[in-house]
Structures are given as structure tokens and as C-alpha cells.
């Protein structure tokens, strides 16, 4: 009995964590490669071509280069925080991934294997909280560098991430009200029960979420904290080698987390389109986790696509959009969602 418990609650989670870590790290490495390739095609050039066929080994070469680089730390930097900051970003991004439900789960060798590492009842809240932690990495990294460009970048980052978090949270709350749960698995199940992905029920919320998602991960057109043409590299100007790579990987991991969150909240997680309709039943040949990954990659591609298309906003414009446009709309969205839920409940008796 105790062996079974040990396997169920010890071995399986460890295997799950390892699988998620390895898969996500690979996706991060090849996400960078994909981004370089996709951007290159948008730019009408080829991108990495030298290392291996079509430059496929480029991420490995880059990783090795970054690992072997001299560990450089500015003499005026606050050493403890300087070392800690990049780690916070990675930590925050990877912990958030534990609550992403990749599929329904199966039974293997008599043991229950859910496709989520931790299905906690406050999943979404925890994910939002963890992704908010990344602002510490930005602020502490910029502050500890003891340099002017990183400082400006860090302040921009703090202001931006905090203000977009508000709009993000409000839109998510509207979705949670429909789902009636905060568990990530529960939200997907709710979408199955209602027979519709939540972006159909929450079109305004979905758009705001996507905008905030881009801003939250500091991607173009909201990449002001690192705006390379203004602030050199923003908050990680003084970082190099593996610490710099941690910021880079952290940013990608954050993109993955946000994509997963968007898929879970708005695109029905591992569900096929119109999960209750018989017409789309044939789509079940694609297994749930694959659906999830496909939808996630769609968002990743979206991130890269807008990076190739848009210029960058200015700091004050960014704040204007955040506070004067997105937050009021998200509050109104929340309000109307509440009213409609009340009306539906009243109609149902």
C-alpha cells in the first residue's frame, strides 16, 4: 500500500516534473530558433543556416557559447541580488508551468497519471501570482546593476508590468466567474460543459488578455524595459553569459506560460473545437495534449508575428493604453459578465 502511495505521490510527480522541464527547455531553445527563423522569413532572409541542416543545431551552439563565457559581474553591482535576479525569473516562469493542464490524464500500470503536475483549487490565482514575480527579476536586476540604463529599464518594467497585471487580472476574473472555479483543470472542464471555448463567451476579455499577455512578457510592441534602441538592453544591459541567458530563457518561459494560460482560459485547453458537437467528433483523432500544444504554438507564433510587424510604443503611450483604455474596458467587461450571469441564473430559476 505504502509503495503504491509512494509511486502515486512521489515518483509520478517527479517524472511529470522532469518531462515538463525537459520539454519546456527544449521548446524554449527551439522557440528561440523558431523565432529567428520566422523573423528571418518575415524579413525576407534565411536566418540561421550554418550549424547543422537549416541551422538546426544553432540553439545548442548558442547554449554552449553562453555557458563557456566568462562570468562577468560589474564591480559596482550588488553581487547577491545581481546573481539572484535572473534566477527569480526562471523560477517564477517554471513554477507557473506546474499548474498547466496539458490533457485529461490517463491510467498507466494501474496508477492515475494526470497531465498536470499540480491541480490546485487556486490554480489560476497561483499562476498569475507566480508570473507577477517576474517583475522582481526585472526590478532587482536593473537596480543591482548599479548602472543608469538598466535602472531606467527596470523602472519602466516595474510600472508596465504592474499596470498591465491589473487589466489582466480583471479580464481573468470575468472568465473565472463563468467557469465558477479557479482550478485550471476545472476551467477546461467548464468549457466542455458549456460546449464552447471561453473566447466565444468572452470576446472582449480575450482581446484584452492577448494584449496584456504581450505587455506582461515584455514583447514588442511593449518591449520598453529592454528597448534596445533607447536603453541599449534595458534592465539586463550589464548581464552577460549564462545570467543573460537566464533572462532570455525566462522571457521565453514566460511566453510559454502566458500562451498556456491563454489556451487554458480562452481556447478550451486540450478540448477540440465545439467539444459537445458531434460534427467535430472526428477531430478527436488528435489527442488532447497535442491540441493543447498546437494552440500554444499558435500563440507563440502570434508573439513572433507581431514582433516582425509592429514598431514599439513609447513609455507614456503604453501607460495611457494600460490605464485609460484596457483597465476601464476590463472592468466594464467584468461588470457586464456579472450581470449576464445573474440574468442567466435568474432565468434558469
Amino acid at each position, binding site marked *: 500500500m505504502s509503495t503504491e502511495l509512494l509511486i502515486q505521490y512521489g515518483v509520478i510527480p517527479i517524472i511529470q516534473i522532469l518531462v515538463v522541464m525537459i520539454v519546456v527547455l527544449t521548446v524554449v531553445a527551439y522557440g528561440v530558433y523558431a523565432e529567428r527563423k520566422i523573423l528571418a522569413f518575415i524579413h525576407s532572409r534565411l536566418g540561421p543556416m550554418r550549424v547543422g541542416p537549416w541551422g538546426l543545431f544553432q540553439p545548442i551552439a548558442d547554449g554552449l557559447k553562453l555557458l563557456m563565457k566568462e562570468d562577468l559581474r560589474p564591480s559596482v553591482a550588488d553581487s547577491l541580488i545581481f546573481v539572484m535576479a535572473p534566477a527569480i525569473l526562471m523560477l517564477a516562469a517554471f513554477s507557473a508551468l506546474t499548474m498547466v493542464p496539458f490533457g485529461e490524464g490517463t491510467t498507466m500500470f494501474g496508477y492515475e497519471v494526470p497531465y498536470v503536475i499540480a491541480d490546485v483549487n487556486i490554480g489560476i490565482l497561483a499562476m498569475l501570482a507566480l508570473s507577477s514575480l517576474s517583475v522582481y527579476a526585472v526590478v532587482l536586476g536593473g537596480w543591482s546593476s548599479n548602472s*543608469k540604463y538598466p535602472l531606467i529599464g527596470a523602472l519602466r518594467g516595474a510600472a508596465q508590468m504592474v499596470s498591465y497585471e491589473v487589466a489582466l487580472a480583471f479580464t481573468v476574473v470575468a472568465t473565472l466567474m463563468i467557469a465558477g472555479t479557479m482550478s485550471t483543470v476545472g476551467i477546461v472542464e467548464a468549457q466542455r460543459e458549456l460546449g464552447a471555448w471561453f473566447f466565444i463567451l468572452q470576446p472582449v476579455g480575450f482581446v484584452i488578455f492577448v494584449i496584456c499577455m504581450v505587455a506582461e512578457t515584455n514583447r514588442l510592441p511593449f518591449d520598453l524595459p529592454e528597448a534596445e534602441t*533607447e536603453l541599449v538592453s534595458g534592465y539586463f544591459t550589464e548581464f552577460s553569459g549564462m545570467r543573460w541567458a537566464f533572462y532570455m530563457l525566462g522571457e521565453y518561459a514566460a511566453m510559454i506560460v502566458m500562451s498556456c494560460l491563454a489556451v487554458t482560459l480562452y481556447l478550451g485547453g486540450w478540448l477540440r473545437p465545439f467539444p459537445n458537437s458531434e460534427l467535430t467528433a472526428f477531430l478527436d483523432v488528435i489527442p488532447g495534449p497535442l491540441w493543447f500544444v498546437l494552440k500554444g504554438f499558435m500563440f507563440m507564433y502570434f508573439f513572433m508575428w507581431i514582433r516582425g510587424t509592429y514598431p514599439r510604443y513609447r513609455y507614456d503611450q503604453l501607460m495611457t493604453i494600460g490605464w485609460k483604455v484596457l483597465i476601464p474596458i476590463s472592468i466594464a467587461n467584468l461588470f457586464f459578465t456579472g450581470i449576464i450571469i445573474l440574468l442567466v441564473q435568474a432565468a434558469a430559476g
Partner: protein
Amino acid sequence: MLDIREMELNMGPQHPSTHGVLRLILYLDGETVVDCKPVMGYLHRGTEKLMETRNYYQNVPFTDRTDYLAAPYMNLGYVEAVEKLAGWEVPERAQYVRTAIAELTRIASHLLWLGTHAMDIGAQTMVLWTMREREVVLDFFESALGDRLTTSAFRPGGLRRELPDGWIDAVLAFCKTFPDRIDEYEALLSRNRIWLARTVGVGVISGQDAIDLGLSGPMLRGSGVPYDIRKEMPYAAYDKVDFDIAVEEECDSYARYLVRLVEMRQAVLIVEQCLDALPEGPIQGKVPKTHKIEAGREVYHVVESPRGELGYYIVSSGTGVPYKCKIRAPSFVNLQSLTPMSIGRLVADVVTIIGTLDIVLGDVDR
């Protein structure tokens, strides 16, 4: 009490968007620029002094290296000034070819400007798209003039050699397709909300201020002053071709962006007209071998380079070497408007403003 003071931020000379080795000392209140001091001279090579030690013919390569993004135009201004000084005749064919190459230069220069300006504002795709077309123009330079960047395109009296076979047809074919490419750039930027938000109302300088500061080129025409030396004091074959001056009234970065786009379109028309009406005849006029010009003569000759009024003031010494050669560099004069345009704006706007000035540090520092 906390001591509140402005932050002094050193931007450049090694900064990704100061377009070379420009250094700005910014005094910031938060992100608002309180004061901005451009520091230049990092690329000073004493070109003007060096030109006093070489003969008129040997000086042409020096002019390449001032505004290296529009080298043929620098050559054009210099050789025309020398021709004016000495009274040497230039065959008509050479005049037409010079005009065509000069306008191709304008296209190449504006393309690089558009790409880097857009990149400064964050649109990375533009720079690679514009490089694609600039590459074609540079190939034309390579085949006709022997070099891509530092062309030493012209020599006093005409051109070094005749155009290669097929060059004219290739250029005309490019002129056919290039307007479509400009449409492509416009599709990506002209009505893009973020582009508009970043350029409209940024870097405003009124027409009167522009005149007072001595601005020229697109900087002046973007402020509603219809002044173009190609029309006012025609040189080369500009009096024989038909084209419009691009003028915009809004005085901001977006207006200057539109001006430069129209200039590229007009440049295509000028190149087509020049090559269609290219007269037969020699390409190099008669010039004395020693280049000796009698003492005491002086000349000031201006041309409309892609960046504005480019002037050469040359005093002869009686030998083949000039006594003095002063270059009135448009980038240097236009740079003066950076401080008045930047004060009260945000750091991000400073980057936009440096971009819209279209300065070349080789031209500023000489």
C-alpha cells in the same frame, strides 16, 4: 529631505541608435529630457585640412568619406565646385549621367534612413526590406563606378569612364519595380497606429525656426518651406528634367517621413527621364593634366544632397592644390535642431528625433 536632481545620462558614442559616434549628454527628470547636449568630433579626420595637401583630382576620395551614405553626391558637389572654379566644361552626357547617379544615391540614402529610422522606433522588418532594394542600387554603383560605398563617382570634367553595357536597361528595370516597393513600405508604416503615435507631433520645428537654424533638405521641406536647391539653383542636368518638390506642412517626424518617401518616388522619375534622354557624346571633358587653377579665385557651390544643402567653398592657390576647401555639411547644421526638438520630450523621442534628422557622423565631424 531627499536631494532631488536631474539624472545625467550619457547616450553614446557607443549606443545602438546614435547612428555612429554621436554622443548626447541628456539631463533627465524621470524620463523627460530637461536638457540635451550633443558632443561631436569623435569621427573628425581633418578632411578639410587634408584637402589642402592633395591636388583637385586626388581630393575626390576624401569627399567620399565625409557623407559615406551618399558618396556620389559628395563627389558631385565637389567636382562641380572645382569645375566652376576653373571654368572647365562638362559634356552634356556626363551631366545627365551624373544626375541619374545622384538621384540613385538619394534613393540609396533615403532607403537606409527609412530602415534605420524604423528600426530605432522598433520596426525591425523595415531595415531588411530597405536593404534589399539598397543592395540593387549599390550593385549599380559597383558596376558603373567600381565601388559600392566610397564610389569616387565623378572627376572634374566628367566621369572616369563610360557606363557599362546593359547598365541603363538594368536601372530602368529597377525604376519600374521600385515604386511598388515603396508602396510595400507604406503598407507597413504609413497608417500603422504605433508608427503614427511615435512620429506624429514628435520633433516639431516650425518653418521659421527651421530657417533660423539653417536647416535644409527634408528637415526644411518637412516644415512647409518649399526650398530645394535642385529647383532654386539647378546644377548638373536638373534644369532639364521635370520633377516636383516634396513639401509637408506638419513640421514633425511623420511629415519628414512623407517628404522622404515622395523624394524617393520623384528620384525614380528623374532617373528615368535622364536615362531616356541620355545624349550621345563624350563622357569626359577637356581638363588640363596638371589641374592648375590660377590663384585668387574662390567659389561656393551648393547641391541638394539627400540630407540637405551641401556646399563647397574652395579657394585656389595658383597650383593644382586648393588653398582652402570648406565643406558646408548638411548633417552638421541639421544636428543643431536636436536640442530644441528634444527638450521636454521623452528619451524614446530623442531616438526618434536623431533618426528623423538623418545625420551621418562622417558628415558632421568630417
